[in-house]
């Protein structure tokens, strides 16, 4: 079978590149707020409770419910973290947009409650989801920090 001529290879490559560029440009225009290369989206605070009295020993966190986000090249995880008296009382995955199965991180909210930290154990074979989840929880905790 005859090989494709070089000029056809160049022409077809250019056509493919043009269609790719059109798609890339369209998505870039539509989603300028999306960040790539493993950077984080800006944190969102959904609600905050009132600060405790002045005569008490200052706590590390301000009581309330916070929304944190962790993202990387494989998608994004959003969590809501409830804090009361410096304790993480509830963690929920409010949005899971990774390109992997949610089953990989389904037990992690429970783990955060047990260890009272965002540093969950890395699940072998689910590194990207684990990192995104951990980052999301840490993002929420950072917002709750008393400055």
């Amino acid at each position: 079978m005859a090989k494709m001529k070089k000029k056809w290879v160049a022409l077809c490559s250019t056509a493919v590149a043009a269609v790719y560029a059109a798609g890339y440009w369209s998505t870039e225009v539509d989603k300028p707020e999306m960040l790539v290369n493993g950077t984080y989206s800006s944190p969102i605070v959904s609600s905050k409770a009132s600060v405790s009295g002045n005569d008490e020993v200052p706590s590390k966190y301000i009581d309330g419910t916070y929304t944190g986000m962790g993202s990387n090249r494989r998608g994004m995880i959003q969590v809501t973290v409830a804090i009361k008296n410096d304790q993480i009382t509830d963690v929920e995955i409010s949005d899971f947009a990774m390109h992997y199965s949610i089953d990989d991180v389904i037990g992690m909210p429970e783990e955060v409650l047990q260890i009272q930290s965002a540093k969950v154990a890395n699940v072998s074979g689910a590194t990207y989801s684990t990192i995104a989840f951990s980052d999301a929880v840490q993002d929420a905790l950072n917002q709750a920090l008393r400055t």
Partner: protein
Amino acid sequence: MKWKQWFKSPKAYVLITISVYLFIASWATHSIRGIENGGIAVGTAIVIDVLFALIKKRKRIMPDGAAITGLIVALILSLNTAWPIIASTACLSIISKHLLVYKKKPIFNPAAFGLFLSILIYHTEQSWWGAFGDLPSWYIPLLLIGGYAVTNRVNKYQQIFTFFMITFAMVLAMELLHSGDAFDALRPPFINATLFFGCFMLTDPPTSPAKPTGQIIFGILAAVVGTIVYGIYGGLMYLFIGLFVGNLYHLLQTRFSSKVTTKSRKEPRQRGMTD
């Protein structure tokens, strides 16, 4: 086969190219884990392939195809995948190569089949790190250089151009219709996966057609099915599912053409007997 001949074979082109990718990606990620994973996957694939060759009493035992399958598995599975899962995925790939066959040729691309089963069985995380999925975009030209060299050697330009054109056009349509995640599909690591997949897995000679018309239909099927699956479900299995549909088309095409050939061979003889 002499070494000089082997170096000019399509398998040598693929094996050398993806080995170079393994070392570049390992160097760039500052991790020896990829090379370890490559050793585990290639070692397992070769052992299982040689065992099958011995069981089938083959005269020529040359596990270069198994080494390619093992390397592809290692380049796609996440660097943090546990070694038994890597070995088992390579094992599944080689078993499919020897058990799911038609006329001694594998029906499905072995690496794709093993990786697909690996997602279903072990929920493996596939990062396409060996396709530079974790690295900056300027590594992509390296994928294209190696990919074009291999595609040129196996003479499958029609197939990859059709596949890429249809895939990118459908992703553009997805974006215009605001359906599915077109943004991710055109950026690393997904674009790396698409390019690596198109150049090194789609072009696998035993599991894809040789003639230009067959290549074009194969490319269309793989792209259409894969992109629809991506648009609806997202995830990472979409490329493999598209490829399997293409592989099945190739199987049907081979069966149909072999039946026609057999019939046309029989007919003159039958005519001769009755005339």
